[in-house]
C-alpha cells in the first residue's frame, strides 16, 4: 500500500492503518530499534509504541515521508528506553561504542555560558551536516543516527572498513571544531 493510502486510513481513523504500517514499515522500524537496543523484546515494544504514537500524531500531522516520520519516532523511543535501562551502568554494544565516539565531538565547555537549547543544537547539527560531502554525511548518519556497525556501513557503501573508520574519525573532529567555533556548550 502506498504511503498516501496509509495516511488516508489514519486520517479516516481506520485502525487498518496500523496493520498496513506494520506491513510496510515493521521491519524498517524494528531494525532501527534493534540497532540501539539489541534486545528483541524491547525492540518489538518500541515498534508497537511507534504505531501508537503515529496513531495519536496523525492527524493533525501529515508526514511528507512516512518512513522517516516513523523511523524518527522509533529512534527516540528506543533511545529513551536505552537510557532508562543503561542510566546507571555502562554496558557494551554498538550504542555504547557510538556514544563513546560522540564524546570526541563534545566541545570544551566554559563555565560562564549556558548549555545550548535543544532546538538550536539540532539546527547547528543540520548546518554542520550541510557542510559535509554527501557521502560523508551519509556515513555519519548511518553510524550515529541508525547506529550501524562499521562493517555494515563498509558493506553498504562498498568501502574498506578502515576507510569508514578514518572518515568517521575525521568527521567527529570536524564536528567538534564546528561546535567550538559556534561557542556551543553541551
Amino acid at each position, binding site marked *: 500500500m502506498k504511503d498516501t493510502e496509509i495516511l488516508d486510513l489514519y486520517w479516516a481513523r481506520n485502525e487498518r492503518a496500523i496493520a498496513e504500517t506494520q506491513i510496510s514499515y515493521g521491519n524498517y522500524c524494528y531494525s532501527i530499534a534493534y540497532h540501539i537496543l539489541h534486545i528483541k523484546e524491547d525492540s518489538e515494544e518500541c515498534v508497537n509504541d511507534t504505531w501508537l504514537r503515529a496513531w495519536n500524531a496523525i492527524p493533525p500531522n501529515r508526514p511528507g515521508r512516512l518512513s522517516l516520520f516513523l523511523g524518527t519516532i522509533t529512534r527516540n523511543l528506543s533511545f529513551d528506553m536505552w537510557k532508562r535501562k543503561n542510566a546507571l551502568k555502562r554496558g557494551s554494544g554498538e550504542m555504547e561504542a557510538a556514544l563513546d565516539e560522540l564524546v570526541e565531538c563534545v566541545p570544551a565547555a566554559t563555565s560562564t555560558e549556558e548549555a545550548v537549547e535543544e532546538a538550536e543544537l539540532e539546527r*547547528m547539527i543540520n548546518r554542520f551536516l550541510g557542510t559535509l560531502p554527501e557521502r560523508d554525511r551519509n556515513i555519519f548518519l548511518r553510524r550515529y*543516527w541508525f547506529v550501524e556497525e562499521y562493517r555494515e556501513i563498509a558493506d553498504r557503501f*562498498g568501502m574498506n572498513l578502515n576507510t569508514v573508520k578514518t572518515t568517521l574519525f575525521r568527521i567527529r573532529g570536524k564536528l567538534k571544531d564546528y561546535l567550538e567555533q559556534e561557542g556551543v556548550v553541551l
Partner: protein
Amino acid sequence: MSYEEEKREAAMRLFGALSGVDEAYLAACEEDNCNCNDNTGKGAKSGIGVFVRRYGRAAAAVLTLAVLGASFMVYQTNNSKDGTAYFSEKAAESGGAFTNGTMMQDAAVMGAETPMEQQEQRVASSVRSDANEEGMVSEDVERYTLQPAEGADREDQMEELDSQLNAHTENAQGEMKKQKEITQLEAAKLAVVGDYLPDTWPTRGSISQISCDDTAGEETLTIRWSYGDNIDDFELSIINMGDTQPMTVADVSKPESYDERLYKVSHGETVPDEYSQVYSDAVFREEEFTKECVAARIIAYMDDTGDTVSFKGRFGVLYRTEDGAFVVVRFNGSGIVDEIWEMMESIDGQN
C-alpha cells in the same frame, strides 16, 4: 557528576539532537545504498552478496586457477603418453606451486571442521594461491595467513584478514571503486575538475591525500592538505555540479550575509535567519572573489587553553566552464589569509 559522566551526558545530548536531522538528509541517506564495487546499488545486505563482495575476487582468482589447472591437465593428457607423470614432473619443477595452490586449498577446506573455519581456510588459501602466482616471498604469504584464535579475536582476525585481502586483491586487479585515491598527476589530468587545481600551495605542509568521487552524481576532487601537526589542515574540494547552481551564492554587496568578522559566537543566535544559509556555506562568484572575501571567512579562533590562536574558515568559489557547467572550489579548514588567497588566485580554471 564526574568529568567523564558530564562528557557522556553531552554525547547523549548530541545523539538525541540527531533525531532532529533534516528529512532531506535522511532521505538522501536512505537512498544512498550504492555499493560502489558492483555499481548496482543492490544486494548490499544479503549474506550471499556480502560474502561474494568480500571474497568474490579471491574466489574468482581461485576459480581462474582451477580452470587454468584443469585446462592444463587436459592439454597435457592429450599431448602426452603419460599425463600423470608429466603433471608430477611439472609440479616438482614449479617448486610445489600446484600443491600449495589449488590442491592444498581444497585439502585444507575439506579438513576444516566448521563453516567459519572453511571460510577462513578458503580465504587464506586463495591468498597463498595468488602469492604463488605473483611470486611473493614466504614472509608476504605469512602476513596474510590467519593464526588460530577464538571468539572476538577470531572475528577481529577475520576482519583484519579481509582488509589485507582487499588491499592485496585491489593492488592485483586494479582499482574498481568510483571513490578512489589518485596522484596529483592523475588529478591534473581529470576532465573539468582537474583544470581547477591550484598552481600555488601554502609554504608549510604538503598534500596528504587526493581522492576522486563521482558516486553522488557530481564529480568531486578532494585534496587534503596537512600542515604536519595532525591538527591544523584543510580540505579543498573541486566539485563539478553540472547544471546545478549552488544555493548559497553570496552577494558581495551584502557583507552582513557572509562576513564572519561581523558576528560574535554563537553564530546560531547572532546571525539573522535570512542570512543563515549563505553564512554557513558562502560561495563567491569567481568575478567577485577577492582577498577581502577570504579575510571575511577565515577568522581567528582561540584554543581551549586560550594560549593559541588558529585561523580557520570555509568558503567556496563558483566558476563556469566553457560548456556553461558550474564548478565550485570549496576551502574548509585552517590557513593564513594571504596564503589561502594566493592558492585560490592561482586557480586558472579553463581560462
